[in-house]
């Protein structure tokens, strides 16, 4: 932090970054107190797309809330569907067939790749490079085509049901997924040569926006933001769910804590996701995709339940309280980017405007998920 930014006598001005600004990727507003191009203080202002999802949950049946979970984070919708069905299944004591679990993992990981690819493009766009965005979209389009062919939708998939999946996949999907893995593995080196190794990008990201593990813990940051600060925490490994324990994958951790570390965590995660999908395809068992005894009207026993999954942006936790009726009593959604964003005020202090925007990009914000 430079001395000017610290001096209280210096004349400062307030810059409204958003709600309409190209770098916030949505309707986030950040009130920046600036000293020249240095940021003295940053205050995120939320709520521009608040849709009361939690309140909506208290007025709908358990099944009817399902589409809402896909609308929190529209880029990684399946993780959120997964979190919700998982916690309700836990409450109902439902057994999910193994094939359904494997297919859940395959589709969730494909969705995670799609989300990371979009982030990759949008992040480089924040840094001023336009072309990688279009390349990443090209690859992401293949994933969306695959997922659309099984789920019927390109963003708000709504594919999982309590006790399984709404329908089985066909052979086209399986061969298509294998072809896609091959294709992306061929294209990833191009991305690394074009972007990761680019000296301009390295100079912009190295040692910029350093988040300590301490700060991440303080604000409850999770996901790639936390792993970029050297903390090895991934719900898939630490509190295993679904069939993740049977699959062999690594959790990329970088200890630098700068924007480059968060970038590398996500790029390495794409590799790991490909590994997971490949193994899950190999191990995919035959069988039904829906549990047999699922009641028509769900009425989980009264109680308090919590479940968490690793979404593309961090830990998505969902706490449900049931009073034994077919309508939830309370629905609490813990969205990862809300916590990830809350450290922005402290972390961006003393940075230059372009570096602060690089930091914001590296947090991978999805605004509707923050506001809920």
């Amino acid at each position, binding site marked *: 932090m430079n001395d000017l930014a610290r001096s209280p006598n210096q004349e400062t001005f307030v810059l409204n970054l958003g709600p309409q600004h*190209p*770098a916030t990727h949505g309707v986030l507003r950040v009130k920046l107190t600036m000293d020249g191009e240095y940021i003295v203080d940053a205050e995120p202002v939320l709520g521009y797309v608040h849709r009361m999802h939690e309140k909506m949950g208290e007025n709908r049946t358990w099944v009817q809330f399902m589409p809402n979970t896909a609308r929190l984070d529209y880029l990684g919708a399946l993780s959120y569907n997964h979190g919700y069905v998982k916690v309700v299944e836990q409450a109902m004591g439902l057994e999910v067939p193994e094939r359904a679990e494997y297919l859940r993992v395959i589709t969730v990981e494909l969705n995670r790749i799609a989300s990371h690819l979009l982030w990759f493009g949008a992040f480089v766009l924040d840094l001023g*490079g336009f*072309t990688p965005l279009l390349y990443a979209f090209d690859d992401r389009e293949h994933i969306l085509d695959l997922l659309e062919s099984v789920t019927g939708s390109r963003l708000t998939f709504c594919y999982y049901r309590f006790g399984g999946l709404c329908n089985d996949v066909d052979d086209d999907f399986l061969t298509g997924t294998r072809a896609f893995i091959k294709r992306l593995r061929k294209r990833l080196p191009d991305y690394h040569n074009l972007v990761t190794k680019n000296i301009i990008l390295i100079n912009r990201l190295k040692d910029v926006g350093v988040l300590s593990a301490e700060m991440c813990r303080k604000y409850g940051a999770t996901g790639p933001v936390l792993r970029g600060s050297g903390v090895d925490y991934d719900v898939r490994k630490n509190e295993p769910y679904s069939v993740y324990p049977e699959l062999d994958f690594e959790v990329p951790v970088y200890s630098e804590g700068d924007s480059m570390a968060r970038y590398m965590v996500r790029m390495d995660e794409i590799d790991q996701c490909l590994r997971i999908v490949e193994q899950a395809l190999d191990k995919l068992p035959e069988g039904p995709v829906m549990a047999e005894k699922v009641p028509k009207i769900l009425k989980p026993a009264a109680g308090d339940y919590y479940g968490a999954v690793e979404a593309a942006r961090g830990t998505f936790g969902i706490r449900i309280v049931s009073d034994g009726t077919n309508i939830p009593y309370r629905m609490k959604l813990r969205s990862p980017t809300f916590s990830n964003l809350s450290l922005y005020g402290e972390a961006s202090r003393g940075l230059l405007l*372009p570096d602060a925007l690089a930091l914001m990009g590296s947090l991978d914000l999805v605004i509707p998920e923050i506001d809920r």
Partner: protein
Amino acid sequence: MTLTEPWRVLAFLVGIIAFVALNAAYLVWLERKVAGHIQGRIGPKEVGPFGLLQPLADGIKLMSKQLLVPKGVDPLLFKVAPLLVLVPAVMSFVTIPFGENLVARNIDIGLLMIFAFASVNVMGLLLGGWGSNNKYAVISAARAVSQNVAYEIPMLITVVTMIMLTSTMNLNEMVIQQGGGILNWHFFANPLMPFAFLIFFVCALAETNRAPFDLGEAESELIAGFHTEYSGMGFGVFFMGEYANIIIGCSLAVILFLGGWQSPFEFLSDQGLWGVFWFLAKVYFLIFCVMWIRWTYPRTTLWGLLNLSWKILIPISLLILLLTGAMIKVWPLITGAS
């Protein structure tokens, strides 16, 4: 064919303005096509064959739009700023030799004049940003000025090297010295020249506010920088100025290093219109490179540009200046020539 004085001025004005306007329009089209194909798209294709009428449609749209002057701006500065970007760029064309005899004014200090006019360009950006009453525009104006400090020094050192090498500031004379095939171009004058060319080219990118040095209009940080508040033709004139500056920058690079209107091989003619052809071919090739670079790299920051300038470009350009000077003086002594 010689024209009398007032006619000559008129011919120059009409010719240059038509050239700049046409180029600005069609370079936008070209840029969109290049960007499109780099990104696996087609680019404009709906208006006319291959989208060739797109610039016309864009131009009509821009001209028919109201020129908004927002509340609180300085109306005079706000309106003058776009002209301050365009007019110096047009003036710089005065000394550019398009062919052996096709130059509006063959001035002995042509090179100096171009740099004098080029420095006015920054004034336009500064005033436009300052007068806009917009915080993003003010930040952008401040950036444009500090950026200017960063790239002008290495650029001028390189140009001084070239003046030492050619011992003239007359652009046409410089081109004539490079006659007789590709190996006589200054690009190959000595082993250091390719590096000098690279430095000049990088500085020209910064001078024209092109990516990766488009700090002034960094759209993901400052919306559109100094022209955030401009609408209609106010924006259009800024845009024309930007493209005119690109043409000037690339023309200078061609004249200084790549033999101007000289043909690359002796058996190919460079008389009359052939000279114009060779000149434009080289200029457009460099412009293509400028676009190619823009759609490949992310943007640097101001610190990045300053680091590049002070740690890399200035030391190396000084070294080139020194070595070239030594070569000019020492080489004849060693070889025993007069």
